[in-house]
Protein backbone atom coordinates (compact mmCIF):
# COMPACT_ATOMS: atom_id res chain seq x y z
CA UNK A 1 0.00 0.00 0.00
CA UNK A 2 2.65 2.46 1.05
CA UNK A 3 4.64 1.31 -1.91
CA UNK A 4 1.76 1.96 -4.27
CA UNK A 5 1.19 5.41 -2.79
CA UNK A 6 4.86 6.15 -3.15
CA UNK A 7 4.72 5.01 -6.77
CA UNK A 8 1.75 7.27 -7.51
CA UNK A 9 3.35 10.23 -5.77
CA UNK A 10 6.52 9.89 -7.71
CA UNK A 11 4.89 9.40 -11.07
CA UNK A 12 5.22 12.12 -13.65
CA UNK A 13 1.44 12.69 -13.74
CA UNK A 14 1.20 13.37 -10.01
CA UNK A 15 4.23 15.61 -10.04
CA UNK A 16 2.88 17.57 -12.96
CA UNK A 17 -0.20 18.44 -10.90
CA UNK A 18 1.28 18.92 -7.43
CA UNK A 19 4.56 20.80 -7.42
CA UNK A 20 5.31 20.02 -3.79
CA UNK A 21 5.45 17.16 -1.34
CA UNK A 22 2.86 16.32 1.29
CA UNK A 23 2.14 19.55 3.20
CA UNK A 24 3.63 18.59 6.56
CA UNK A 25 6.70 20.81 6.49
CA UNK A 26 6.67 24.61 6.56
CA UNK A 27 8.04 24.70 3.01
CA UNK A 28 5.41 22.37 1.59
CA UNK A 29 2.60 24.02 3.54
CA UNK A 30 3.59 27.32 2.03
CA UNK A 31 3.73 25.81 -1.43
CA UNK A 32 0.36 24.09 -0.96
CA UNK A 33 -1.29 27.48 -0.65
CA UNK A 34 0.88 29.37 -3.10
CA UNK A 35 0.75 26.89 -5.95
CA UNK A 36 -3.02 26.39 -5.91
CA UNK A 37 -5.13 28.94 -7.69
CA UNK A 38 -8.09 28.47 -5.31
CA UNK A 39 -6.17 28.28 -2.08
CA UNK A 40 -4.05 31.27 -2.92
CA UNK A 41 -7.07 33.42 -2.13
CA UNK A 42 -5.70 32.85 1.38
CA UNK A 43 -2.41 34.18 2.65
CA UNK A 44 0.20 31.56 3.59
CA UNK A 45 -0.10 32.43 7.25
CA UNK A 46 -3.04 33.85 9.15
CA UNK A 47 -3.48 35.38 12.57
CA UNK A 48 -4.82 32.77 14.97
CA UNK A 49 -7.49 35.22 16.16
CA UNK A 50 -8.85 35.65 12.66
CA UNK A 51 -9.75 32.01 12.06
CA UNK A 52 -11.60 31.33 15.31
CA UNK A 53 -15.26 30.46 14.64
CA UNK A 54 -16.25 32.38 17.75
CA UNK A 55 -14.77 35.44 16.05
CA UNK A 56 -15.79 35.07 12.39
CA UNK A 57 -18.94 32.94 12.78
CA UNK A 58 -17.87 31.54 9.37
CA UNK A 59 -20.69 33.52 7.81
CA UNK A 60 -18.75 35.10 4.95
CA UNK A 61 -17.36 31.72 3.97
CA UNK A 62 -20.77 30.08 4.20
CA UNK A 63 -22.25 32.80 2.02
CA UNK A 64 -19.66 32.14 -0.66
CA UNK A 65 -20.19 28.41 -0.35
CA UNK A 66 -23.95 28.89 -0.66
CA UNK A 67 -23.36 30.94 -3.78
CA UNK A 68 -21.49 27.96 -5.23
CA UNK A 69 -24.22 25.50 -4.21
CA UNK A 70 -26.85 27.77 -5.72
CA UNK A 71 -24.89 28.15 -8.94
CA UNK A 72 -24.54 24.38 -9.28
CA UNK A 73 -28.14 23.49 -8.42
CA UNK A 74 -29.40 26.43 -10.44
CA UNK A 75 -27.48 25.25 -13.48
CA UNK A 76 -29.08 21.81 -13.17
CA UNK A 77 -32.54 23.36 -12.77
CA UNK A 78 -32.00 25.39 -15.92
CA UNK A 79 -31.92 22.16 -17.94
CA UNK A 80 -35.50 21.43 -16.98
CA UNK A 81 -37.07 24.84 -16.88
CA UNK A 82 -38.60 26.94 -19.64
CA UNK A 83 -39.22 30.57 -18.66
CA UNK A 84 -42.55 31.02 -20.42
CA UNK A 85 -45.91 31.66 -18.83
CA UNK A 86 -47.46 28.40 -20.04
CA UNK A 87 -44.49 26.11 -19.35
CA UNK A 88 -42.78 27.47 -16.21
CA UNK A 89 -45.26 26.15 -13.64
CA UNK A 90 -45.57 22.83 -15.45
CA UNK A 91 -41.80 22.30 -15.43
CA UNK A 92 -41.43 23.08 -11.73
CA UNK A 93 -44.39 20.86 -10.92
CA UNK A 94 -42.89 18.05 -12.99
CA UNK A 95 -39.66 18.30 -11.00
CA UNK A 96 -41.62 17.41 -7.93
CA UNK A 97 -43.92 14.82 -9.44
CA UNK A 98 -41.55 12.90 -11.68
CA UNK A 99 -38.23 12.94 -9.84
CA UNK A 100 -38.02 10.53 -6.90
CA UNK A 101 -36.13 12.07 -3.96
CA UNK A 102 -35.26 15.08 -6.07
CA UNK A 103 -33.35 17.51 -3.89
CA UNK A 104 -32.05 20.02 -6.42
CA UNK A 105 -34.99 22.39 -6.20
CA UNK A 106 -35.06 21.99 -2.45
CA UNK A 107 -31.34 22.69 -2.13
CA UNK A 108 -31.81 25.73 -4.33
CA UNK A 109 -34.76 27.10 -2.41
CA UNK A 110 -33.53 26.46 1.14
CA UNK A 111 -30.03 27.52 0.15
CA UNK A 112 -31.36 30.80 -1.20
CA UNK A 113 -33.20 31.49 2.06
CA UNK A 114 -30.08 30.61 4.04
CA UNK A 115 -27.85 32.81 1.90
CA UNK A 116 -29.93 35.85 2.78
CA UNK A 117 -29.59 34.99 6.47
CA UNK A 118 -25.86 34.27 6.26
CA UNK A 119 -25.22 37.52 4.41
CA UNK A 120 -27.06 39.47 7.09
CA UNK A 121 -25.16 37.70 9.86
CA UNK A 122 -21.87 38.32 8.07
CA UNK A 123 -22.66 42.03 7.92
CA UNK A 124 -23.69 41.94 11.59
CA UNK A 125 -20.39 40.35 12.58
CA UNK A 126 -18.34 42.75 10.50
CA UNK A 127 -20.14 45.67 12.11
CA UNK A 128 -19.82 44.35 15.66
CA UNK A 129 -16.08 43.81 15.29
CA UNK A 130 -15.66 47.25 13.73
CA UNK A 131 -14.10 45.63 10.69
CA UNK A 132 -15.41 48.37 8.40
CA UNK A 133 -13.05 50.86 9.95
CA UNK A 134 -9.97 52.08 8.05
CA UNK A 135 -8.45 50.62 5.96
CA UNK A 136 -11.52 48.52 5.11
CA UNK A 137 -14.07 51.25 4.28
CA UNK A 138 -14.18 50.47 0.59
CA UNK A 139 -14.56 46.75 1.10
CA UNK A 140 -17.52 47.34 3.42
CA UNK A 141 -19.14 49.22 0.55
CA UNK A 142 -18.49 46.37 -1.85
CA UNK A 143 -20.09 44.15 0.78
CA UNK A 144 -23.19 46.35 0.98
CA UNK A 145 -23.62 46.08 -2.78
CA UNK A 146 -23.17 42.31 -2.58
CA UNK A 147 -25.86 42.23 0.11
CA UNK A 148 -28.23 44.12 -2.14
CA UNK A 149 -27.37 41.77 -5.02
CA UNK A 150 -28.12 38.76 -2.83
CA UNK A 151 -31.57 40.17 -2.12
CA UNK A 152 -32.10 40.92 -5.81
CA UNK A 153 -31.01 37.42 -6.78
CA UNK A 154 -33.46 35.96 -4.32
CA UNK A 155 -36.19 38.36 -5.39
CA UNK A 156 -35.84 37.58 -9.10
CA UNK A 157 -35.73 33.86 -8.35
CA UNK A 158 -38.92 34.16 -6.30
CA UNK A 159 -40.94 34.70 -9.46
CA UNK A 160 -39.69 31.75 -11.45
CA UNK A 161 -41.91 28.91 -10.06
CA UNK A 162 -44.80 30.96 -11.48
CA UNK A 163 -47.25 29.92 -8.78
CA UNK A 164 -49.58 32.15 -6.79
CA UNK A 165 -46.97 32.79 -4.09
CA UNK A 166 -44.42 33.88 -6.70
CA UNK A 167 -46.59 36.13 -8.78
CA UNK A 168 -48.22 37.92 -5.87
CA UNK A 169 -45.05 38.39 -3.86
CA UNK A 170 -43.45 40.02 -6.89
CA UNK A 171 -46.61 42.05 -7.48
CA UNK A 172 -46.48 43.37 -3.91
CA UNK A 173 -42.75 44.06 -4.23
CA UNK A 174 -42.79 45.78 -7.59
CA UNK A 175 -45.91 47.81 -6.76
CA UNK A 176 -43.57 49.92 -4.66
CA UNK A 177 -41.87 51.11 -7.85
CA UNK A 178 -45.13 52.76 -8.86
CA UNK A 179 -44.55 55.26 -6.09
CA UNK A 180 -40.98 56.22 -7.01
CA UNK A 181 -40.73 60.02 -6.79
CA UNK A 182 -40.81 61.55 -10.29
CA UNK A 183 -40.35 58.18 -12.02
CA UNK A 184 -43.40 56.19 -10.94
CA UNK A 185 -46.87 57.08 -12.12
CA UNK A 186 -48.20 57.21 -8.55
CA UNK A 187 -45.12 58.86 -7.10
CA UNK A 188 -44.89 62.39 -5.77
CA UNK A 189 -43.74 64.79 -8.46
CA UNK A 190 -44.63 62.52 -11.38
CA UNK A 191 -47.32 65.00 -12.46
CA UNK A 192 -44.62 67.65 -12.80
CA UNK A 193 -42.82 65.64 -15.47
CA UNK A 194 -45.04 66.78 -18.31
CA UNK A 195 -44.52 68.96 -21.33
CA UNK A 196 -47.19 70.94 -23.11
CA UNK A 197 -49.94 69.08 -21.29
CA UNK A 198 -48.56 65.64 -22.17
CA UNK A 199 -47.68 63.45 -19.18
CA UNK A 200 -44.36 61.73 -19.61
CA UNK A 201 -44.83 59.41 -16.67
CA UNK A 202 -47.82 57.08 -16.84
CA UNK A 203 -48.55 53.41 -16.14
CA UNK A 204 -47.24 52.48 -19.58
CA UNK A 205 -43.73 53.89 -19.27
CA UNK A 206 -42.75 54.37 -15.62
CA UNK A 207 -40.09 52.54 -13.59
CA UNK A 208 -42.45 49.71 -12.76
CA UNK A 209 -43.18 49.18 -16.44
CA UNK A 210 -39.45 49.00 -17.02
CA UNK A 211 -38.99 46.40 -14.28
CA UNK A 212 -41.86 44.22 -15.43
CA UNK A 213 -41.80 44.83 -19.17
CA UNK A 214 -45.53 45.40 -18.86
CA UNK A 215 -48.28 46.86 -16.74
CA UNK A 216 -48.54 43.75 -14.57
CA UNK A 217 -46.50 40.66 -13.70
CA UNK A 218 -46.74 38.69 -16.93
CA UNK A 219 -44.73 36.84 -19.52
CA UNK A 220 -42.37 39.77 -20.11
CA UNK A 221 -41.56 40.05 -16.41
CA UNK A 222 -40.90 36.31 -16.21
CA UNK A 223 -38.33 36.39 -18.99
CA UNK A 224 -36.74 39.55 -17.67
CA UNK A 225 -36.43 38.15 -14.14
CA UNK A 226 -35.13 34.84 -15.50
CA UNK A 227 -32.32 36.44 -17.46
CA UNK A 228 -31.36 38.69 -14.57
CA UNK A 229 -31.53 35.78 -12.12
CA UNK A 230 -29.50 33.30 -14.16
CA UNK A 231 -27.04 35.56 -15.94
CA UNK A 232 -27.11 39.23 -15.05
CA UNK A 233 -26.95 39.32 -11.27
CA UNK A 234 -24.71 36.23 -10.83
CA UNK A 235 -22.13 37.77 -13.18
CA UNK A 236 -22.11 41.07 -11.31
CA UNK A 237 -22.04 39.26 -7.96
CA UNK A 238 -19.17 37.01 -9.02
CA UNK A 239 -17.16 39.99 -10.23
CA UNK A 240 -17.75 41.91 -7.02
CA UNK A 241 -16.93 38.82 -4.95
CA UNK A 242 -13.55 38.67 -6.64
CA UNK A 243 -13.02 42.32 -5.68
CA UNK A 244 -14.29 41.64 -2.15
CA UNK A 245 -11.94 38.72 -1.50
CA UNK A 246 -8.99 40.43 -3.10
CA UNK A 247 -9.51 43.50 -0.97
CA UNK A 248 -9.74 41.38 2.19
CA UNK A 249 -6.18 40.28 1.42
CA UNK A 250 -4.95 43.72 0.37
CA UNK A 251 -6.46 45.44 3.40
CA UNK A 252 -4.59 43.21 5.80
CA UNK A 253 -6.45 39.91 5.87
CA UNK A 254 -9.28 38.91 8.19
CA UNK A 255 -9.62 41.77 10.62
CA UNK A 256 -7.97 41.66 14.00
CA UNK A 257 -6.68 44.09 16.59
CA UNK A 258 -3.69 46.04 15.35
Amino acid at each position, binding site marked *: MTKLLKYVRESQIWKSVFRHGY*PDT*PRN*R*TLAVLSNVFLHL*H*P*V*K*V*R*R*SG*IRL*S*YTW*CMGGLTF*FLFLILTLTGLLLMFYYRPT*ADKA*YEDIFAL*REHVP*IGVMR*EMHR*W*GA*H*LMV*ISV*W*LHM*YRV*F*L*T*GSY*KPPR*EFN*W*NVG*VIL*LVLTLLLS*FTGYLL*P*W*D*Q*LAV*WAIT*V*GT*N*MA*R*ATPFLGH*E*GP*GAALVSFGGIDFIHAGDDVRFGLLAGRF*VGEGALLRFYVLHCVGFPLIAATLMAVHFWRVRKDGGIS*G*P*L
Partner: protein
Amino acid sequence: MLSALAMLLGGGGEPVNDGPVGAAIKNFSNWLTEPTRYSIASILAVAGILYFRKFFAKVWVITAFFALSTAYFVFAFQDPNFNAIITKPDNVPIVILFATVIFFTWLSLRRAVINDERTKRGEPTLEGELAKQKVFTWPDLVYSELICLVLFTAGMIVWSILITAPIEEPAATARTPNPSKAPWYFLGLQELLVYFDPWLAGVLLPSFIIVGLCAIPYLDMNPKGNGYYTFEERPFAIAFFWVGFLLFWVSFVILGTFLRGPNWSFFGPFEFWDLHKLEPMVNVDLSTYFWVDLLDKPRPDNPFVREAPGIVALIGYFLVLPPLIGKTVMKKMVEEMGMVRFNVFMHLFLWFALIPVKMGLRWTVNLKYFIGMPEYFFNV
Protein backbone atom coordinates in the same frame (compact mmCIF):
# COMPACT_ATOMS: atom_id res chain seq x y z
CA MET B 1 -42.28 7.49 20.45
CA LEU B 2 -42.30 8.02 16.70
CA SER B 3 -46.02 8.51 16.57
CA ALA B 4 -45.78 11.06 19.36
CA LEU B 5 -43.13 12.92 17.38
CA ALA B 6 -45.22 12.72 14.24
CA MET B 7 -48.21 14.07 16.13
CA LEU B 8 -46.08 16.89 17.49
CA LEU B 9 -44.70 17.90 14.12
CA GLY B 10 -47.81 17.20 12.14
CA GLY B 11 -49.81 19.39 14.45
CA GLY B 12 -52.95 18.35 16.21
CA GLY B 13 -55.79 18.98 13.80
CA GLU B 14 -58.05 18.87 16.80
CA PRO B 15 -58.02 21.86 19.11
CA VAL B 16 -56.54 20.66 22.37
CA ASN B 17 -58.04 21.45 25.71
CA ASP B 18 -55.33 23.57 27.26
CA GLY B 19 -56.32 23.80 30.88
CA PRO B 20 -56.00 27.06 32.77
CA VAL B 21 -52.20 27.40 32.55
CA GLY B 22 -52.02 26.68 28.82
CA ALA B 23 -54.86 29.06 28.09
CA ALA B 24 -53.21 31.76 30.17
CA ILE B 25 -49.92 31.36 28.30
CA LYS B 26 -51.71 31.57 24.96
CA ASN B 27 -53.75 34.60 25.93
CA PHE B 28 -50.67 36.33 27.26
CA SER B 29 -48.75 35.57 24.05
CA ASN B 30 -51.56 36.94 21.91
CA TRP B 31 -51.77 40.00 24.13
CA LEU B 32 -48.04 40.71 24.21
CA THR B 33 -47.47 40.33 20.47
CA GLU B 34 -49.99 43.02 19.51
CA PRO B 35 -47.81 45.37 17.39
CA THR B 36 -47.71 48.30 19.84
CA ARG B 37 -46.78 46.12 22.79
CA TYR B 38 -44.49 43.98 20.65
CA SER B 39 -42.51 47.01 19.51
CA ILE B 40 -42.34 48.62 22.94
CA ALA B 41 -41.39 45.31 24.54
CA SER B 42 -38.57 44.79 22.02
CA ILE B 43 -37.24 48.31 22.57
CA LEU B 44 -37.25 47.69 26.31
CA ALA B 45 -35.59 44.31 25.75
CA VAL B 46 -32.75 45.81 23.69
CA ALA B 47 -32.19 48.60 26.20
CA GLY B 48 -32.36 46.18 29.14
CA ILE B 49 -29.98 43.66 27.60
CA LEU B 50 -27.41 46.33 26.80
CA TYR B 51 -27.68 47.86 30.26
CA PHE B 52 -27.54 44.56 32.15
CA ARG B 53 -25.14 43.06 29.61
CA LYS B 54 -22.94 41.41 32.26
CA PHE B 55 -25.91 39.34 33.35
CA PHE B 56 -27.14 38.52 29.86
CA ALA B 57 -23.65 37.51 28.71
CA LYS B 58 -23.66 34.55 31.08
CA VAL B 59 -23.73 31.07 29.58
CA TRP B 60 -26.59 29.81 31.71
CA VAL B 61 -28.78 32.74 30.68
CA ILE B 62 -28.65 31.86 26.99
CA THR B 63 -28.96 28.16 27.80
CA ALA B 64 -32.04 28.86 29.89
CA PHE B 65 -33.43 31.08 27.14
CA PHE B 66 -33.09 28.41 24.47
CA ALA B 67 -34.41 25.71 26.83
CA LEU B 68 -37.47 27.82 27.61
CA SER B 69 -37.99 28.71 23.95
CA THR B 70 -37.82 25.05 23.00
CA ALA B 71 -40.31 24.16 25.72
CA TYR B 72 -42.56 26.97 24.52
CA PHE B 73 -42.34 25.76 20.93
CA VAL B 74 -43.14 22.18 21.90
CA PHE B 75 -46.15 23.44 23.82
CA ALA B 76 -47.23 25.81 21.07
CA PHE B 77 -46.89 23.21 18.31
CA GLN B 78 -49.97 21.45 19.62
CA ASP B 79 -52.06 24.50 18.88
CA PRO B 80 -53.50 24.27 15.37
CA ASN B 81 -53.20 28.01 14.64
CA PHE B 82 -49.61 28.27 15.80
CA ASN B 83 -48.72 25.04 14.06
CA ALA B 84 -50.25 26.15 10.77
CA ILE B 85 -48.03 29.21 10.50
CA ILE B 86 -44.80 27.91 11.99
CA THR B 87 -44.62 24.68 10.00
CA LYS B 88 -45.05 26.27 6.60
CA PRO B 89 -41.92 25.05 4.81
CA ASP B 90 -40.96 28.56 3.76
CA ASN B 91 -41.15 29.73 7.36
CA VAL B 92 -38.49 27.30 8.58
CA PRO B 93 -35.75 29.79 7.60
CA ILE B 94 -37.41 32.45 9.75
CA VAL B 95 -37.13 30.16 12.76
CA ILE B 96 -33.46 29.63 11.85
CA LEU B 97 -33.07 33.41 11.54
CA PHE B 98 -34.61 33.90 14.99
CA ALA B 99 -32.35 31.31 16.63
CA THR B 100 -29.10 32.30 14.92
CA VAL B 101 -29.55 36.04 15.38
CA ILE B 102 -30.21 35.57 19.09
CA PHE B 103 -27.34 33.16 19.51
CA PHE B 104 -24.80 35.32 17.69
CA THR B 105 -26.00 38.46 19.42
CA TRP B 106 -25.39 36.71 22.71
CA LEU B 107 -21.98 35.44 21.57
CA SER B 108 -20.85 38.89 20.48
CA LEU B 109 -22.17 40.42 23.69
CA ARG B 110 -20.34 37.85 25.79
CA ARG B 111 -17.05 38.50 24.01
CA ALA B 112 -17.61 42.24 24.27
CA VAL B 113 -18.17 41.99 28.02
CA ILE B 114 -15.07 39.83 28.48
CA ASN B 115 -12.96 42.16 26.32
CA ASP B 116 -14.18 45.26 28.13
CA GLU B 117 -13.25 43.73 31.48
CA ARG B 118 -9.83 42.72 30.16
CA THR B 119 -9.21 46.20 28.80
CA LYS B 120 -10.14 47.69 32.16
CA ARG B 121 -7.58 45.45 33.85
CA GLY B 122 -5.02 46.47 31.24
CA GLU B 123 -4.90 43.03 29.62
CA PRO B 124 -5.07 42.41 25.87
CA THR B 125 -8.45 41.44 24.38
CA LEU B 126 -9.34 37.85 23.51
CA GLU B 127 -8.51 38.60 19.90
CA GLY B 128 -5.42 40.63 20.79
CA GLU B 129 -3.91 37.72 22.65
CA LEU B 130 -4.32 35.34 19.74
CA ALA B 131 -3.45 37.86 17.06
CA LYS B 132 0.22 37.70 18.02
CA GLN B 133 0.41 34.10 16.88
CA LYS B 134 0.43 33.30 13.22
CA VAL B 135 -0.44 29.88 11.94
CA PHE B 136 -0.18 28.20 8.57
CA THR B 137 -3.27 28.41 6.39
CA TRP B 138 -2.66 24.77 5.56
CA PRO B 139 -3.75 22.95 7.69
CA ASP B 140 -5.28 25.25 10.36
CA LEU B 141 -7.64 27.28 8.19
CA VAL B 142 -8.16 24.92 5.27
CA TYR B 143 -9.20 22.06 7.54
CA SER B 144 -11.74 24.04 9.51
CA GLU B 145 -13.15 25.36 6.24
CA LEU B 146 -13.45 21.81 4.95
CA ILE B 147 -15.16 20.59 8.12
CA CYS B 148 -17.65 23.49 8.05
CA LEU B 149 -18.34 22.81 4.40
CA VAL B 150 -18.95 19.08 4.84
CA LEU B 151 -21.19 19.48 7.90
CA PHE B 152 -23.10 22.27 6.24
CA THR B 153 -23.64 20.30 3.03
CA ALA B 154 -24.83 17.29 5.01
CA GLY B 155 -27.30 19.50 6.85
CA MET B 156 -28.56 20.99 3.61
CA ILE B 157 -29.12 17.57 2.05
CA VAL B 158 -30.98 16.27 5.10
CA TRP B 159 -33.16 19.38 5.18
CA SER B 160 -33.85 19.08 1.45
CA ILE B 161 -34.88 15.43 1.75
CA LEU B 162 -37.08 16.01 4.79
CA ILE B 163 -38.94 19.08 3.58
CA THR B 164 -40.15 19.29 0.01
CA ALA B 165 -40.08 22.72 -1.60
CA PRO B 166 -43.68 23.85 -1.79
CA ILE B 167 -45.49 24.89 -4.92
CA GLU B 168 -48.86 26.57 -4.77
CA GLU B 169 -51.61 26.84 -7.37
CA PRO B 170 -50.61 28.12 -10.80
CA ALA B 171 -50.32 31.88 -11.15
CA ALA B 172 -53.65 33.60 -11.66
CA THR B 173 -53.59 37.35 -11.96
CA ALA B 174 -57.33 37.51 -11.34
CA ARG B 175 -57.24 35.83 -7.92
CA THR B 176 -55.46 37.87 -5.26
CA PRO B 177 -54.48 35.79 -2.25
CA ASN B 178 -55.16 37.34 1.14
CA PRO B 179 -52.73 38.16 2.67
CA SER B 180 -50.42 39.02 -0.24
CA LYS B 181 -46.97 39.18 1.21
CA ALA B 182 -43.67 40.29 -0.26
CA PRO B 183 -40.73 37.84 0.05
CA TRP B 184 -39.94 37.39 3.74
CA TYR B 185 -36.75 39.48 3.76
CA PHE B 186 -38.76 42.53 2.65
CA LEU B 187 -41.47 42.10 5.29
CA GLY B 188 -39.82 44.70 7.49
CA LEU B 189 -40.46 47.22 4.73
CA GLN B 190 -43.98 45.92 4.20
CA GLU B 191 -44.59 46.46 7.93
CA LEU B 192 -43.54 50.08 7.46
CA LEU B 193 -46.37 50.42 4.94
CA VAL B 194 -48.69 50.50 7.93
CA TYR B 195 -47.17 53.83 8.87
CA PHE B 196 -45.86 55.29 5.61
CA ASP B 197 -46.92 55.49 1.97
CA PRO B 198 -45.14 53.33 -0.62
CA TRP B 199 -42.93 56.13 -1.87
CA LEU B 200 -41.36 56.30 1.59
CA ALA B 201 -41.61 52.72 2.85
CA GLY B 202 -40.88 51.09 -0.48
CA VAL B 203 -38.56 53.50 -2.25
CA LEU B 204 -37.00 56.25 -0.17
CA LEU B 205 -36.37 54.47 3.13
CA PRO B 206 -34.77 51.38 1.51
CA SER B 207 -32.55 53.69 -0.53
CA PHE B 208 -31.56 55.49 2.65
CA ILE B 209 -30.79 52.14 4.29
CA ILE B 210 -28.37 51.29 1.47
CA VAL B 211 -26.83 54.76 1.41
CA GLY B 212 -26.67 54.78 5.19
CA LEU B 213 -24.92 51.41 5.34
CA CYS B 214 -22.41 52.58 2.75
CA ALA B 215 -21.80 55.77 4.72
CA ILE B 216 -21.11 54.02 8.04
CA PRO B 217 -17.30 53.74 7.65
CA TYR B 218 -17.04 57.39 6.72
CA LEU B 219 -19.30 58.65 9.50
CA ASP B 220 -17.94 56.56 12.36
CA MET B 221 -14.81 58.45 13.35
CA ASN B 222 -14.12 56.35 16.44
CA PRO B 223 -10.84 54.51 15.77
CA LYS B 224 -11.40 52.07 18.64
CA GLY B 225 -12.96 48.65 18.40
CA ASN B 226 -11.36 47.71 15.09
CA GLY B 227 -10.98 43.96 14.90
CA TYR B 228 -12.36 42.86 18.26
CA TYR B 229 -15.67 42.73 20.08
CA THR B 230 -16.36 45.56 22.48
CA PHE B 231 -19.28 47.54 23.76
CA GLU B 232 -17.82 50.18 26.06
CA GLU B 233 -15.42 51.57 23.49
CA ARG B 234 -18.21 52.25 20.98
CA PRO B 235 -21.52 52.14 22.85
CA PHE B 236 -23.42 54.43 20.51
CA ALA B 237 -22.44 52.55 17.33
CA ILE B 238 -23.37 49.15 18.78
CA ALA B 239 -26.65 50.33 20.31
CA PHE B 240 -27.61 52.08 17.08
CA PHE B 241 -26.93 49.02 14.98
CA TRP B 242 -28.81 46.81 17.41
CA VAL B 243 -31.84 49.05 17.13
CA GLY B 244 -31.61 49.22 13.35
CA PHE B 245 -30.79 45.60 12.63
CA LEU B 246 -32.43 43.70 15.48
CA LEU B 247 -35.52 45.84 16.01
CA PHE B 248 -36.42 47.46 12.73
CA TRP B 249 -35.20 44.69 10.48
CA VAL B 250 -35.12 41.21 12.02
CA SER B 251 -37.94 41.61 14.53
CA PHE B 252 -40.17 43.22 11.88
CA VAL B 253 -39.47 40.32 9.53
CA ILE B 254 -40.62 37.95 12.27
CA LEU B 255 -43.64 40.13 13.00
CA GLY B 256 -44.56 40.29 9.32
CA THR B 257 -44.16 36.55 8.81
CA PHE B 258 -45.93 35.15 11.82
CA LEU B 259 -48.25 37.83 13.11
CA ARG B 260 -49.67 39.51 10.04
CA GLY B 261 -52.63 37.78 8.41
CA PRO B 262 -55.38 38.64 5.95
CA ASN B 263 -55.63 42.37 5.10
CA TRP B 264 -52.31 42.74 6.93
CA SER B 265 -54.32 42.66 10.16
CA PHE B 266 -52.53 41.61 13.28
CA PHE B 267 -53.07 38.07 14.59
CA GLY B 268 -51.57 36.67 17.79
CA PRO B 269 -49.59 33.45 17.41
CA PHE B 270 -52.50 31.41 18.75
CA GLU B 271 -55.21 33.30 16.93
CA PHE B 272 -57.16 31.97 13.95
CA TRP B 273 -56.55 33.88 10.69
CA ASP B 274 -60.07 35.20 10.31
CA LEU B 275 -60.67 36.86 6.93
CA HIS B 276 -63.31 39.10 8.42
CA LYS B 277 -61.33 40.50 11.31
CA LEU B 278 -62.00 44.23 11.29
CA GLU B 279 -59.57 46.83 12.48
CA PRO B 280 -61.21 50.22 12.85
CA MET B 281 -59.67 52.97 10.71
CA VAL B 282 -59.62 55.96 12.99
CA ASN B 283 -56.44 57.69 11.85
CA VAL B 284 -56.50 61.45 11.47
CA ASP B 285 -54.28 63.84 9.50
CA LEU B 286 -52.30 66.54 11.23
CA SER B 287 -54.19 69.12 9.16
CA THR B 288 -57.50 67.97 10.64
CA TYR B 289 -56.07 68.23 14.14
CA PHE B 290 -54.83 71.74 13.39
CA TRP B 291 -57.76 73.30 11.48
CA VAL B 292 -60.77 71.44 12.80
CA ASP B 293 -59.82 70.55 16.35
CA LEU B 294 -57.54 73.43 17.28
CA LEU B 295 -58.94 76.38 15.29
CA ASP B 296 -62.47 75.03 14.95
CA LYS B 297 -62.58 75.89 11.21
CA PRO B 298 -63.16 73.76 8.11
CA ARG B 299 -59.99 72.67 6.36
CA PRO B 300 -58.92 75.18 3.64
CA ASP B 301 -59.29 74.08 0.03
CA ASN B 302 -55.81 74.99 -1.15
CA PRO B 303 -53.72 71.92 -0.30
CA PHE B 304 -50.63 73.97 0.52
CA VAL B 305 -52.48 76.15 3.01
CA ARG B 306 -54.29 73.11 4.38
CA GLU B 307 -51.05 71.20 4.93
CA ALA B 308 -49.05 74.21 6.15
CA PRO B 309 -48.76 72.90 9.75
CA GLY B 310 -47.25 69.62 8.57
CA ILE B 311 -44.95 71.35 6.10
CA VAL B 312 -43.70 73.70 8.81
CA ALA B 313 -43.25 70.80 11.22
CA LEU B 314 -41.19 68.76 8.74
CA ILE B 315 -39.09 71.74 7.61
CA GLY B 316 -38.37 72.35 11.27
CA TYR B 317 -37.50 68.70 11.76
CA PHE B 318 -35.17 68.33 8.78
CA LEU B 319 -33.73 71.81 8.28
CA VAL B 320 -33.84 73.63 11.61
CA LEU B 321 -33.13 70.77 13.97
CA PRO B 322 -29.67 69.75 12.61
CA PRO B 323 -28.01 73.20 12.86
CA LEU B 324 -29.72 73.75 16.20
CA ILE B 325 -28.34 70.51 17.60
CA GLY B 326 -24.98 71.17 15.96
CA LYS B 327 -24.68 74.55 17.64
CA THR B 328 -25.71 73.31 21.07
CA VAL B 329 -25.62 69.73 22.40
CA MET B 330 -23.47 68.23 19.67
CA LYS B 331 -21.03 71.08 19.22
CA LYS B 332 -18.09 68.83 20.02
CA MET B 333 -19.29 66.25 17.54
CA VAL B 334 -19.45 68.83 14.74
CA GLU B 335 -15.88 69.88 15.48
CA GLU B 336 -14.69 66.30 15.33
CA MET B 337 -16.66 65.27 12.26
CA GLY B 338 -16.74 68.44 10.18
CA MET B 339 -19.86 70.00 8.73
CA VAL B 340 -20.33 67.63 5.78
CA ARG B 341 -20.11 64.45 7.81
CA PHE B 342 -22.29 65.89 10.55
CA ASN B 343 -25.03 66.94 8.15
CA VAL B 344 -25.05 63.66 6.26
CA PHE B 345 -25.18 61.82 9.55
CA MET B 346 -27.95 64.00 10.99
CA HIS B 347 -30.15 63.66 7.92
CA LEU B 348 -29.79 59.91 7.75
CA PHE B 349 -30.40 59.72 11.46
CA LEU B 350 -33.49 61.95 11.29
CA TRP B 351 -34.99 59.82 8.53
CA PHE B 352 -34.31 56.76 10.64
CA ALA B 353 -35.80 58.42 13.71
CA LEU B 354 -38.89 59.41 11.73
CA ILE B 355 -39.95 55.74 11.82
CA PRO B 356 -40.30 55.40 15.62
CA VAL B 357 -41.61 58.97 15.85
CA LYS B 358 -44.41 58.25 13.42
CA MET B 359 -45.13 54.89 15.03
CA GLY B 360 -45.38 56.55 18.43
CA LEU B 361 -47.72 59.24 17.13
CA ARG B 362 -49.86 56.62 15.40
CA TRP B 363 -50.25 54.64 18.61
CA THR B 364 -50.89 57.61 20.86
CA VAL B 365 -52.90 60.15 18.82
CA ASN B 366 -53.83 58.07 15.72
CA LEU B 367 -51.85 60.37 13.46
CA LYS B 368 -52.24 59.42 9.81
CA TYR B 369 -50.08 61.90 7.89
CA PHE B 370 -47.98 64.93 8.80
CA ILE B 371 -48.56 66.12 5.27
CA GLY B 372 -51.46 64.55 3.41
CA MET B 373 -51.61 65.65 -0.22
CA PRO B 374 -53.21 62.80 -2.12
CA GLU B 375 -53.59 65.29 -4.99
CA TYR B 376 -49.84 64.98 -5.62
CA PHE B 377 -49.29 61.52 -4.12
CA PHE B 378 -47.34 63.40 -1.48
CA ASN B 379 -48.16 61.90 1.90
CA VAL B 380 -45.65 61.86 4.74
